[in-house]
């Protein structure tokens, strides 16, 4: 008996050492207006988080011994905001040299030291979908992260158990790359052909390997291994959720047809400025849309757009989210969500769902985050003022019950690593670098960038 207990203790010790040492916290948030998203808004309510999970939601919960108490009287508590489209916290964004790079993964380039993570936390964001860029038709795999800022180990930010996702891109971005390099695709027709060719190739690849695995001969020879094809096969088998950069209704509809032909079901359109034109079709397919609130006209294919997009999609039953795609917008996604109340009269709950439970569904993590429910992760944002109010101010942000942002205790210099040879530069509030990373590394290098060390 004693022996086996020891053994169990030893096994526990070993596994806890091997796994990334993610911090889990305990906290009791008292007397708040709790916006649960899935179960209405509860007044004067306490939320108890134990060991990183929401343990109890109710009135007058007794403070367990050793648990920190946060008095949230007059404050609003909502689930941590999720950004379904982000390019912060990555050291590279595009492997733009090839038009199909399913084999590359953002998991390899997570930069936990990016100070943008802290800025996002200061906007109530607890998780992001770190996406590959849009330079290629089938880009790299994305990585869903929890914003556990302060660690220097990229593994500590990984959203454990989140499904794999991948970036696709249609329209001007991949065709621009194709034309610049003199390779396919150079038109929207080429994009579709490339998608169909890639999946057909993947089917052939799968067949080869299936045959090899079935072969009982001792003289059998393994086919060539191809990580790109392996990934495409995983998409065909539904193991990877597709998130596709798109703008125009025709290209959105095209992808629905391609995916129907190949039996791929898990699909979210990113940007999708014209998605409202094909909202019923998206709903029927079961595809999601992750859009901007009111951002368009930055290139030709994004001229035909409307701020009613999110509302129209929502009313048509499309699972819709609002994303940032930017190191700046990510700090006030609650404002972006609020715009759907001016343009489309969405209810409070519908508007907030756009930045919580809906993106959680699009990322396949809705059983863990996106609403305040017992058993879910302790990822919480506390606001002064209603989060949809113009006057809303995020005051605290928790991930797994650990406080990562506290407005009252906001240290100015949040950098984790500092280059000792750097100059002390004037602080820039607006950082152009965090704005547009979608096409980073995809363009031919120019000399201005060379000499500016960008």
């Amino acid at each position, binding site marked *: 008996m004693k022996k086996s207990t020891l053994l169990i203790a030893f096994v526990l010790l070993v596994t806890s050492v091997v796994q990334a040492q993610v911090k889990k916290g305990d906290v009791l948030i008292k007397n708040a207006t709790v916006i649960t998203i899935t179960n209405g808004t509860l007044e004067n309510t306490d939320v108890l988080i134990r060991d990183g999970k929401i343990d109890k939601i109710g009135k007058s919960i007794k403070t367990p011994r050793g648990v920190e108490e946060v008095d949230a009287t007059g404050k609003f508590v909502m689930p941590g905001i999720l950004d379904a489209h982000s390019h912060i916290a990555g050291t590279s964004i595009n*492997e733009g040299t090839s038009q199909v790079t399913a084999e590359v993964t953002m998991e390899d380039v997570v930069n936990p030291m990016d100070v943008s993570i802290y800025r996002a936390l200061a906007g109530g964001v607890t998780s992001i979908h770190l996406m590959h860029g849009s330079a290629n038709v089938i880009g790299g795999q994305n990585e869903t992260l929890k914003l556990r800022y302060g660690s220097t180990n990229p593994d500590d930010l990984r959203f454990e158990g989140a499904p794999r996702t991948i970036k696709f891109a249609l329209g001007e971005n991949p065709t621009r790359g194709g034309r610049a390099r003199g390779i396919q695709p150079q038109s929207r027709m080429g994009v579709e052909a490339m998608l169909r060719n890639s999946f057909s190739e993947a089917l052939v690849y799968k067949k080869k390997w299936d045959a090899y695995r079935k072969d009982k001969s001792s003289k059998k020879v393994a086919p060539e291994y191809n990580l790109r094809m392996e990934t495409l096969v995983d998409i065909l088998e539904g193991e990877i959720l597709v998130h596709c950069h798109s703008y125009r209704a025709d290209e959105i509809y095209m992808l629905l047809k391609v995916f129907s032909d190949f039996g791929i079901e898990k699909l979210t359109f990113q940007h999708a400025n014209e998605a409202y034109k094909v909202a019923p079709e998206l709903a029927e397919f079961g595809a999601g849309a992750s859009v901007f609130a009111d951002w368009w006209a930055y290139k030709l294919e994004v001229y035909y757009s409307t701020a009613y997009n999110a509302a129209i999609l929502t009313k048509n039953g499309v699972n819709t989210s609002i994303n940032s795609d930017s190191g700046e917008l990510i700090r006030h996604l609650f404002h972006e969500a609020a715009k759907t109340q001016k343009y489309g009269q969405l209810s409070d709950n519908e508007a907030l769902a756009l930045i919580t439970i809906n993106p959680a569904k699009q990322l396949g993590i809705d059983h863990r985050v996106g609403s305040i429910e017992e058993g879910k992760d302790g990822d919480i944002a506390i606001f002064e003022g209603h989060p949809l109010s113009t006057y809303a101010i995020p005051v605290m942000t928790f991930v797994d019950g650990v406080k990562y942002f506290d407005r009252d205790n906001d240290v100015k210099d949040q950098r984790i690593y500092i280059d000792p040879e750097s100059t002390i530069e004037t602080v820039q509030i607006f950082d152009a670098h965090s704005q547009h990373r979608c096409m980073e590394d995809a363009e031919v290098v120019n000399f201005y960038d060379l000499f500016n060390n960008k």
Partner: protein
Amino acid sequence: MKKLRKTFFPLLLILPMLFLSANVNAQSDPTAESPATRTYAIQNATIVQAPGNVIEGGTIVIENGLISAVGKNVNIPAYAEIIDGTDLFVYPGFIDGMAYTGAKRPEQPERPRNLFTPDPPNEYAGITPEKHVVDQIVIDDASISSMRKLGFTVSHTVPYGRMLPGSGALLLLTEKEHADLMLLQEDVSLYTQFAGAPGAYPGNTLGIMAKFRNLYRNAELSKQHSEMYASGPAGMERPTRDRTLEAFYPVVAKQKPIFYNANTALEARRAIRLKNELGFNLVIGNLQQGWDLVDAIKNSGTQVFMSLELPEEPKEAKEEDQTEEVKQLEERRMEFYKRYLTQYAEMKKAGVKFGFSTIDASAGKIKKNLKTLLDYGMTEDDLLAALTIDAAELLGINTITGSLEKGKLGNAVITKGAYFADDSQVKYVFVDGDKFDFEVKEKKANGENAAPANAEAIVGTWSYTVMSPEGEQGGKMIIRMEDGFLAGTLTSNDGSPDNDMQNISFRDGELNFEFSIDAGGQSVLVLVSGPVTGNEFDGEATVEQFNVSFPLRATKDEAK
């Protein structure tokens, strides 16, 4: 007579070879520079056999390439050249864990016409693991003599290139007629780095990580196939030759380590990630940010060569610019400057055994940097261990070098005053039993890097302007003399980070140097050359990767 001939004939064949390895000038030496003997005895010296193991007033005999005796009471052969060791310190020859020493950067592969960027030729992608650094070795490259002058006797030299440039070799930093004769061991490592191909796959870290996995998995399959075929080919598909994959076979078999040039903590973690996934033996070279990696390094069984390039000490702003905020920012910058320096002692204390890599360190700075590490917690014994026995153990050559013991290679550095003392001076370096004497001017020392007498003329601060197609850009070009070598820095007026000037040479009124810039994770090398007339430099900057040039002009600032 016949019998004599029979006895001597084989000797006659071998003899020239013996002479060749003993001394290049031995057969016929009109310069009369060849040594009369290859046996040396340093008498009455302080002999540091290994860190912490010192013989005062000892004697060491180096005979025919090997250490034949060390100790207090040692018989000195009559034919030995005797060196009076009073005031001299004898150390084991230093070992460089990862460097380009002796290798010459080859021409960048030309961008093929109509390059299919998703699948470029391996040569252009920089995926040439089948190559060997020996082919890049230039026997009289100035880097060999400048590293030797510092006390380095063995260099693990790796090839220049991109993602997978080829195999590294252990090079004796000596003078021979042919690179083969300088090789201690060939193909000891497979060298790799996060260097993408310009505008082709793999272009950056994303593609490089994926490509590495793909190559490795296919190498495993290909190795398996060729082994199965070798044991019973009948009825089996014939394996096709693929030299790229074959280069991985010894890595897959764990007979050869991967040497990853991983400078930052994130790069090192990526290399360790690949090791954990694929299972090869990993050595990280050139690490500059190791302070958060002790556990990751230990748990994964990774070996490390720390960089000997250290950050420059930050300079504080002028008093009038020191607002409270600037002060705080400067404090944090200083905290990190110290972290870069104290990590060496901390890692040592945490039980991470490491050697040094000089791949990013210019020869002129190395001694200064070693002394800086002394100020930040490393002891002289720690430094010596990293330079000698620990490096030898990590490279698997501790049975033949790394300490001054009988039977080991005649590799030693002899200084007047203790090596790490301020006014110490390297007097002799022995490599493979050959003596290099620094009391007189070193033979053949006028290599490319060594500064000619008039080099002082260009030392100073210059204001430069680059006229690139994107507009003008300016800054200061600061040229210094460091331990007899030219060194320099390019600053930028727009606040971009400084760039180190490398391979600076000034000869016949012509100034040449190069620097590299990081363009979105892609390293771009810029070569600059042009004439200096008075205080004017009329240079041309060339980026070979893109086959473009533009003017870089500079005017020397008046000395105040």
